[in-house]
């Protein structure tokens, strides 16, 4: 079966611009919402727009944003990955426990990333080649990987002391007055966004998400692309886990709990769709920032803890509704 390379080029460009246009519109909407929120909050609290507070808010969402970048790719393909939280915890505890047993921290970090890649590979294989539903597969992997994290730590958070300062610099250092974590996030976002907008494989991901049958028939090796998608998602979750270890010097087996839903929410707010075919890395970042601002506002405005989950849930529903409405407009 020969992949038809020449014929789709024109449709390619047309679809690309069309997709881009919609995505750009969605991102603009989010930017406007963020700006509006910032203005409103700055009136309610004088310290909100200070450089300090802005840096703090962005710092608070670094992990969610990194995981969301990976999650976006999965969402674009029409799937999602519920195991990212567990992979995050596992990467941190594998790295931490190896370091505590005398392994060089950088080697331990590489092994931690390797463990995440294994998880992603297994997930991707079962979803891509054995064709198991992503929900079930990643739900199962969530349990398996979380179990690994618990077994390695015997349930307790590991206090990882005696680690070289160079490693701690990643999670705790400052460069030009801005936390290194934010610089790392910037690099991750820029590189991933570039890949998702330019690389050929990225285009395939969008096609698979828009219409998997058509993508397959046009010669795209869907199963192979899916394997890579879940490897990427797990890789980013692993990076977030190791950075969390560097930030707290503690590897907790529950570090990433709930991260998967936060990431999915951030991505959808940022323009991704649960049905696939849409979403950008920049959108994921913006979605995370919006979630971060809302969380910050809840504390700033002293909203009772019992109301907070209500508010957060409401924001998510509003975002998903906006997503569905725009989707319908597009389809018409």
């Amino acid at each position, binding site marked *: 079966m020969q992949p038809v390379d020449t014929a789709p080029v024109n449709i390619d460009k047309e679809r690309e611009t069309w997709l881009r246009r919609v995505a750009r519109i969605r991102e603009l909407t989010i930017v406007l919402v963020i700006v509006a929120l910032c203005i409103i909050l700055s009136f309610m609290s004088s310290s909100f727009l200070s450089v300090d507070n802005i840096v*703090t808010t962005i710092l*608070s969402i670094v992990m969610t944003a990194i995981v969301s970048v990976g999650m976006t790719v999965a969402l674009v393909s029409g799937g999602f990955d519920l195991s990212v939280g567990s992979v995050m915890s596992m990467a941190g505890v594998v790295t931490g426990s190896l370091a505590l047993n005398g392994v060089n921290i950088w080697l331990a970090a590489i092994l931690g990333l390797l463990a995440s*890649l294994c998880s992603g*590979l297994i997930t991707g*294989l079962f979803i891509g080649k054995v064709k198991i539903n992503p929900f079930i597969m990643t739900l199962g992997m969530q349990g398996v990987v979380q179990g690994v994290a*618990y077994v390695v730590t015997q*349930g307790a958070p590991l206090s990882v002391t005696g680690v070289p300062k160079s490693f701690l610099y990643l999670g705790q250092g400052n460069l030009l007055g801005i936390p290194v974590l934010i610089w790392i996030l910037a690099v991750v976002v820029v590189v991933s966004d570039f890949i998702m907008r330019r690389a050929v494989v990225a285009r395939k991901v969008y096609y698979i998400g828009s219409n998997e049958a058509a993508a397959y028939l046009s010669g795209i090796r869907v199963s192979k692309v899916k394997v890579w998608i879940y490897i990427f998602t797990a890789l980013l979750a692993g990076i977030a886990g190791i950075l969390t270890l560097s930030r707290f010097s503690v590897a907790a087996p529950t*570090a990433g709990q709930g991260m998967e839903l936060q990431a999915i929410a951030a991505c959808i707010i940022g323009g991704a769709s649960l049905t696939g075919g849409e979403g950008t890395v920049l959108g994921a970042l913006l979605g995370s920032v919006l979630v971060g601002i809302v969380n910050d506002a809840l*504390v700033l405005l002293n909203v009772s803890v019992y109301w907070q989950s209500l508010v957060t849930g409401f924001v998510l529903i509003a975002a998903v509704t906006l997503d569905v409405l725009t989707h319908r407009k597009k389809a018409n």
Partner: protein
Amino acid sequence: MKRFNWKSGKKYAAVAAAAASIVLAATGCSTGGGNSSTSSGSTGGSSSAFQGSSSETYYMVTFLSGIEYWKGCFAGMQAAAKDLGVKAVFTGAPQYDINQEVTTMQQVIAKHPAGILVTSINAQAMTPVINQAIAAGIPVISFDSDAPQSKRYAYLGTSNIEAGQKAADYLGQALGGHGEVAVITTPGELNLDQRVQGFKDEMAAKYPGVKVVAVQNGNSDQIKTAQVTSALLQTYPNLAGIFCTEADEGTGAATAVQEAGKTGKVKIVSFDTDKATLNAIKSGQITATVAQGTWNMGFWGLMDLFAIHHNLVHPVANWQQSGVDPVPPEVDTGVTIVTKSNVNAYLQQ
């Protein structure tokens, strides 16, 4: 549709399996599995009343079984088990879920152990199953979280309210009686809610100059707590102290305070004595933590169970019939405030 491509699938699978096993083996070899039961052969020839047999098994039933806190309790129970020559097994519900713990308890009852040490996620929910165990002839003793309406023989633990009070006493004094403080907890967990209540009441009563400006949800998670703490530091620039009702929340708060460059300026009082917290006290990131008498809960709990099981205690003749409790019914195992001055004792454990 396309048939599963065995060749490349096998290749991928082999790579995945090899890589996974390398990583797992590396961590497995270096960490070594934990053993959750202790057995000790009974030394022959001893006629001491306090010698049991290795087939005699006592269970510890918990909720949130994975957390570090129970380790201290179980360590005490294991020490007693070793001294007595019996077996102690740790089990529990992994999650904060009533149904899970009740089910676990029923499964333990089915094994007909020599005794059960249980901490109850919810007093009302656990009372029927505790009574079920006692009706089946298994002595049950509560520790840490009590089920006071049940027929358990004794309760060993800390009053969570008192623990909160001690934290307030320490923090109020450390702040010189005035300042703004915040509390970070996980609302909805009974024992944590009690700590917060004890803290707030004591602060209002003894140190009225100290204002509790916020109570926020840390979700028992470092990352969430760090986010909430940094938001609090922005909202209340004069914040002088933070009370965290849980160890992981303490670690998260300490990191956020450090990131804001306010270590030392904001005093953090955390809870329990996991390694990370103790190290943070040593380094000055956390000012103090509330240590509970967990080891003693486990140790004396098992001692009491053993005594009951072997019918060694006779405060009155035929206590079974007269309904008199053979062992002290309420034992306060106390709290200690751990600071830099005494942290080394806890670290050495």
